[in-house]
Structures are given as C-alpha cells and as structure tokens.
C-alpha cells in the first residue's frame, strides 16, 4: 500500500464505487468492444407497408444485456415508407457531441439515401437489440462504424435487388444514388416505389454486403446541421428536465455535504407541514456515489415548493465514515512528498540517475499541480420515473442509459424486464452522466410515490455532489545534452486513491503514456494520497490535466535546450511508427509529427508577433486522437492573461460531419481554457466549497478566443469529443 496516512481509513464504499467507475472507463476505452459486432438483419412487418430493417446483435456474445436470449427481439433501425420518407433511429445519447446527426449520416451514406429524405428519431433503450447505447471516451463513431454502415448497406442491397427483379436484370447492372436505384440503361426507381418489393427480398448477410469506398462517399465529411436544431431554437421539449407527465409530482434529494455521511435525524414532521409538500422521507441508499447515497427526499406539488422546503430541512448527519478531505492538506503533503521519489515505480527505462549525475547534461526541475474540478453540465442532474403495477418507466438524461437497466433493477429491486428507459436529449455530458446516480435515486423515490415523479437537483446539489476530475501533482526533473537533445525525464506523480491501491478513475498515468518510450532515460514514480471525494471521468479523462503538466514541462526543456519548441517535439517523435504495432489506438509518431507541423504552419509559428504577445504550442495524444494546438496569448501588467487565437490541428480519422467536428474542437478549446484558468473545486472537511456559478467560473463570451480548426483525415476512426480540450498549454 502506497498511500500516505493523511486519511488513513479507507472507505470501503468509496473504494467499491471507484472500482465500478474504473471498470466502466476501461470498458469504454478498451481496445476490445465487449459487445460483438456480429450483426444480423431481419425483416419485420409494419402497418402501411414498405421496408423495415431490424438490426440484431448476436446474443451469444453479449455480456451486458441480462435479458438477451436466443430469441431475437426485433427493433427497427431504419424504415423506408412507400412515400419515400426514410426514418432512421439513432441508437446513442445526444449529449452535444452530435451523434444523433452523425450516426444516421453513416447509415444514410451506405444506404445511398438523399439526406433530405431522412428524418431521425431516438431509438429506445434496448441493448439486446442495439448493443452498447452509451457515449463516452470518444468512442461512439469508431465502435459503431461497422455496425451502422452494415445497416445501411444491407438495405441498399435489398432495394437494388428489388429493382433488378422488377426490371428483370442482374443486380450488378444496377446502382443506387440519392434514394434511387438506377439501371445501366438509365431506368430509375425511387426508394419509395421500391419499399414494398424490397421488403420481400431475402436479407443478405451483413458481413457479406459490399461497403462503399471512401472515395465514393456522397454524404460523409460535408457540413450538416444538427437534426434537432429547429426544436432546440424553438424551445420544444427535448431534455430530461422537460419531461412532463400527468399528475406528476416533484422531488428534491438532500445528501450529506461531506461525502459519505448518513442521516442521523431530520425535522421530517416540520417539513411535511410546509406548503405544497406531499411527503418527506429518509432513504438509506446503497452508500455508493454511483448509486444512491443516504439522504432525505422531499416530494412536493411543484419544483419551487420542493426547493423551498429543502431550505427548511434540517438534517443531523452521522459523519463518522464521511470524507475529511482538505485540499490545503493535500497540497502540503504533496509539497513534502515531491522532495523525494514516489513510493511506487511505474516505469523505468535506461538510467536517469546516471544522466542527472553527469555534468555533460543540463538539468531542470519543475512542479505542476492541478485541482479537483466539477463537470457543471448546464442541465443539472435530473430524472423522471413512474412506478405502477410493478413496472418502472424512466426518462433519463444519461450518457449510459443502457447501463442503468441492470443497475436500477438491483438498486430499486424491480425485475429488469419490468423496467423501460427512455433516452432524452442530454444538456451536456462531459463524462458526468456516465454515472447513473440520479437515475438510481429517482427509481428509489418513485417506488414510494404513487405518481410520476421528477427528481430535480439544484445547481448547488449538482456542484457539491459530482464525480470530480481528480487533482494531481507532478515533480519533474529532466535533462538535455549539449546538442540540445532530450536525454532524461523523471516524473514523481502524486495522485489519489480510493482503495489505497489503485489511482482513482481518471487519475492514472501509465509508463507508456507520452513521453514514455520517447525518452532514452525515463522514470515515472507514483505516490497515492487517499481521498474520500468521488472521482470520475471528465472530458478526456486523465489527459485533460496530464497534458497541461507534461506538455508544459516539454516546453521548459526546449527552452533549457535553447531549441525551437516545434523542432524539439518533432525530434522527440523520431521515425514515423505505431507505438504498439498493429494497434490503431496507440500513438503514431508520424501522425503526431504531421499535426504538430500543421498547427505550426497554420498559426504562423516563428513569424514575428505584436509586442506583448507570445505563442505556445502543445501536442497531445488522447483517446486515439492526435492533436496539436498553438495558442497566441498576451499578459498585461496585472498579469491578466488573454487568449487571442488558437490554432488546432487534429488527426482523428475520417470526419463524418465537418460542422460537428469543428464545433467539438472549438468547444473543447473553450472548455480547456475554463479548466486551466478559472476552475477549482476546494475541499474542506470533506465538503466542496463551491456551490454555484458565482463561485465556479465558466468562460464567458468576451473571453472566448478565435479558434481555427484543421483536420488531417487518416484512415482509421478515432473519435472527436474529447481531445480538443487537452493540449491547451501556453508557452510563456
């Protein structure tokens, strides 16, 4: 055990919680998808005629759908009506990353559909049919790419087959384009006209259908507006918070401000008498932050009655097992610890000591730290549920509603086959909604309420009961030789643990993470501080903080070597190669060099700047995407920093929707700026001190920099949601 005795009692609930989150992140980020992509397509009839394709996942190889059986439960993926309209269901959650537009675009490309014929609906949550229906770790596009393309291609093959039969020609003599099948002699039939005949065609093997080549793409890579944009700008109900049900009641839930505290007593009788209050009760909970922590639920006739009653609620908490975390204490401990090596060696290549002992090398040291931060999704956590006749129906703004099915079944004690979850649009994910705590809470509450109930967290609840991006400390030492070449890199990484053994979710650093394997003498050691604060994934988990520290130190080393930062980084990359041969989710030094060169070129790197301005460059590899950014900044006499312009060069593989991809990069830069310069969650006696946006800043429009985005589109898909926020390092 390597933890420091700051908070020596390991909280077993926190440890279990963290293990669950780490497993989830590993699952999301892992190289092997747990759900088989062997897909089957089968026909299902529907009223009105036309072609309906249902999509199946082989239940044999399915690990996370408890209800999967040998029987294939049909569910429509796409539907073509005789009037020519094409309905495509999007299987994943729209959290602002754009997949409700991107997924159907991929299907429509292989279908050879005209995009204006397509309308999109949210698919029901049914992992037995759709496979994984979560979104996290920038993996939605890469992991669903084949499945979605096959869905479109099978339908296209059947439409072509139907046309060939009608014309009595071979299918090879026909092609599809813009929702029509065209014969070699120029005859045409629309998809609408073919829909009914296509439904009678045999279904080809999804794996055998020919997929289009990239050069033949008619849709992908262009600019598309989000499919829900009109609804968004006219204020139509879309989000979890917008759920309205007949005779619905409203709930709030008060948890202990120190993580892990239990309810000792509360003024329940007093609160029950307050205007609009229908009920108030204590929930013991499971004790896990990813499920249900202990607390008091108030049920009222309106959100406002519930909020007001919550202000009158007085709870005496049992904090004997609650977190005692103090950020100031962590800072002091880290300062002491960083004077020596870490307690555990994570990676050791060559001999850093020999280099540091040699007078032929120039040595520098630096320390970096970053605090805990919150997700602060603009839609606070909320969820609606209705328990009646032994069945539970849920409307969830979750990033992993599929994962909530077995979870809620266990926590709320409702058989999984009696649970229905509707996916709503999500008012910001950023990793916060990988956890389904608010879903578990409302399910538990709904079982005690004889009506549909909407649970609404206040902003204060949201900010003080997050699963935070963990803080961390780095004590770096590095060396360059007389030619200015990087010869040694040492990092004593002080991070946090919940179980006393492993770093918390989002708090790990591996030996082969950048710049491991790129430096001849490399040592990474680690010391774990024990925290009782729940930690989780935040946009590019791990990377969002690590890139700041690591890339800043690379810059310091380049300065020490009196080298140009771009040239120094390119030299570190060396020959173009995959770090792990054959693994397209590993770092490719050639792609890295390409994005670094592109960012430098597009940002006028090396050219003179107005007085007072400077450029900083950073590279980062995260979630299989290669990204370089150049920031142009100035600092005034009061040390106020202004970010003028950011140039992003990214290689995340082929782009599905250019508008969406650019938006992700622009947003991620803004997010990165907020994280680095404005945000801090302070912990005192286990309590988060920041309550609302007056104490926790998000970047506002006057400070938003100009962002230019340039993509290199290599062959393999890698995903886009996360990387942009990562390498925003300012080289001043």
């Amino acid at each position, binding site marked *: 055990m390597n933890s420091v005795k700051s908070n020596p009692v390991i909280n077993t609930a926190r440890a279990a919680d963290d293990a669950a989150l780490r497993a989830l992140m590993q699952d999301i980020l892992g190289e092997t998808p747990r759900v088989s992509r062997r897909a089957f397509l089968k026909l299902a009839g529907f009223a009105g005629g036309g072609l309906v394709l249902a999509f199946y996942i082989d239940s044999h190889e399915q690990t996370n759908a408890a209800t999967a059986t040998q029987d294939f439960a049909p569910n429509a993926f796409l539907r073509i009506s005789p009037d020519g309209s094409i309905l495509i269901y999007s299987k994943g959650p729209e959290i*602002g990353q754009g997949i409700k537009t991107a997924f159907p675009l991929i299907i429509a490309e292989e279908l050879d559909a005209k995009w204006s014929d397509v309308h999109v609906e949210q698919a029901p949550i049914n992992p037995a049919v759709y496979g994984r229906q979560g979104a996290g770790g920038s993996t939605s596009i890469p992991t669903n790419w084949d499945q979605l393309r096959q869905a479109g291609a099978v339908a296209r093959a059947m439409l072509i087959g139907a046309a060939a039969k009608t014309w009595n020609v071979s299918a090879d003599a026909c092609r599809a384009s813009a929702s029509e099948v065209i014969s070699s002699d120029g005859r045409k039939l629309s998809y609408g006209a073919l829909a009914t005949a296509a439904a009678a065609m045999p279904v080809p093997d999804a794996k055998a259908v020919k997929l289009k080549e990239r050069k033949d793409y008619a849709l992908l890579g262009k600019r598309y507006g*989000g499919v829900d*944009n009109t609804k968004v*700008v*006219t*204020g139509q109900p879309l989000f979890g918070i917008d759920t309205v049900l007949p005779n619905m009641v409203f709930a709030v839930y008060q948890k202990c401000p120190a993580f892990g505290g239990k309810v000792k007593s509360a003024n329940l009788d007093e609160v029950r008498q307050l205007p609009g209050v229908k009920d108030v009760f204590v929930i013991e909970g499971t004790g896990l932050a990813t499920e249900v922590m202990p607390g008091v639920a108030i049920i009222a006739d309106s959100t406002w009655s519930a*909020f007001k009653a919550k202000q009158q609620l007085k709870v005496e908490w049992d904090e004997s097992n609650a977190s005692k975390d103090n950020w100031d204490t962590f800072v002091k401990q880290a300062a002491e610890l960083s004077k020596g090596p870490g307690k555990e060696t994570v990676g050791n290549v060559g001999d850093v000591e020999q280099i540091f002992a040699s007078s032929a090398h120039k040595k520098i040291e630096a320390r970096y730290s970053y605090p805990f931060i919150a997700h602060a999704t*603009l839609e606070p956590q909320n969820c609606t549920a209705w328990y009646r006749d032994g069945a539970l129906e849920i409307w969830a703004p979750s990033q992993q509603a599929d994962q909530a099915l077995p979870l809620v079944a266990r926590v709320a004690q409702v058989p999984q086959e009696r649970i229905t979850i509707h996916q709503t649009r999500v008012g910001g994910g950023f990793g916060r909604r990988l956890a389904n705590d608010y879903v578990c809470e409302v399910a538990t509450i709904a079982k005690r309420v004889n009506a549909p109930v909407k649970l609404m967290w206040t902003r204060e609840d949201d900010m003080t009961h997050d699963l935070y991006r963990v803080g961390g400390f780095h004590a770096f030492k590095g060396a360059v030789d007389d030619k200015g070449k990087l010869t040694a890199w040492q990092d004593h990484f002080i991070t946090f643990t919940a179980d006393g053994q492993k770093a918390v979710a989002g708090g790990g650093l591996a030996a082969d993470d950048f710049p491991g394997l790129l430096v001849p003498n490399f040592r990474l050691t680690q010391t774990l501080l024990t925290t009782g604060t729940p930690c989780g994934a935040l946009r590019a988990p791990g990377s969002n903080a690590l890139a700041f520290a690591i890339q800043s130190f690379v810059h310091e080393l380049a300065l020490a070597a009196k080298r140009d930062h771009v040239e120094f980084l390119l030299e570190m990359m060396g020959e173009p190669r995959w770090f792990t041969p054959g693994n397209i989710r590993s770092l490719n030094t050639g792609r890295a060099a390409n994005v670094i060169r592109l960012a430098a070129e597009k940002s006028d790197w090396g050219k003179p700047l107005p007085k007072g301005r400077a450029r900083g460059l950073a590279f980062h590899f995260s979630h299989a995407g290669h990204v370089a950014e150049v920031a142009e900044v100035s600092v005034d006499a009061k040390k106020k920093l202004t970010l003028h312009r950011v140039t992003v060069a990214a290689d995340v593989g082929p782009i599905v929707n250019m508008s969406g991809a650019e938006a992700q990069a622009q947003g991620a830069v803004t997010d990165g700026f907020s994280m680095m310069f404005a945000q801090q969650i302070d912990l005192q006696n286990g309590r988060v001190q920041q309550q609302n*946006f007056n104490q926790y800043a998000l970047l506002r*429009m006057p400070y938003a920099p100009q962002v230019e985005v340039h993509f290199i589109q290599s062959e393999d898909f890698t995903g886009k949601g996360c990387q942009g926020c990562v390498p925003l390092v300012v080289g001043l």
Partner: protein
Amino acid sequence: MPTLTVNGQTRTIDDIDPTTPLLWVLRDRLGLVGTKYGCGIAQCGACTVHLNGAPVRSCSVPLAAVEGQQITTIEGLANQDGKLHPLQQAWIEHDVPQCGYCQAGQLMTAAALLKQKPKPSDADIDSAMAANLCRCGTYLRIRAAIHDAANKSAYAVAP
C-alpha cells in the same frame, strides 16, 4: 388570482405561492419548458425571457413582481404564423447548438440586443451576451449568427 400575458395570451394562475419565480411558473404551471433552469441565481442566463421586451433572468423574478405584465418566452420568439425569428434561422444556418440546453436563453438575450441595436458591434455582442453561459463553448458561432441575423434583418427592411 395572478394574471400574466405570455406570448400574447392572457394566462391566469390560481392557487400559487406568489414568491414562485417566473421560471417555475412557466415550466411547471404553464407547460412552457423551453425556458431552462441552470443556476437559480441569475448567473447562467439559461432562463432568460423578455419582460415587456427587456431580457430578464426568470429564475430570479418572483411572480408577484410581474403580475399583469407582458412576457415573451422562446416558444413565442417566432412569428405567430410560425415564421422563425431571423436569429432562430441564423442559429440553424450556423449549426450553433451543441447540447442545446443554453440556447433558448442565448436567443432571448440576443433578440433583446437586436431590438436595442439592430447592427451590434462585436463589443455590443460581448457585453450583452456575457450574461449567458454556454458550457459547450458555442460562443464563436453565436457571435457569427447574431451578425448574420442583423445583416439579414436589415436587408429585409430595406432591400
């Protein structure tokens, strides 16, 4: 009984605590859920509506303070015949929304700005829109869409 004019219609709200913020009257009592809750303390702007034409943060305006007055919400921003406001059109053309949660508030603040200043400068836009947070970081597109809508509106009036 408190009465409001919301999007041109007179609405009477019975049996309500007069301290209820306008936001929750709109959402829970009138079923107008386009106006969003984000912070409850007038910091994020997600709840922005027009009170007699001026932008207010409806989370911090009690019902008692606005009785009998004119309220416009995102649901009433388009023309009554359904024609979108130039800002709504520009938002679609520029593909502004990411998660979309803040956009109703952004649009209402921007619409009030254009009423005051039909041709706003970047500084005018920054100053008005600083009241509204976007967690996804769509600010660049919001600014471009406001300029675009301003130019098109002017065009429509004087071709």
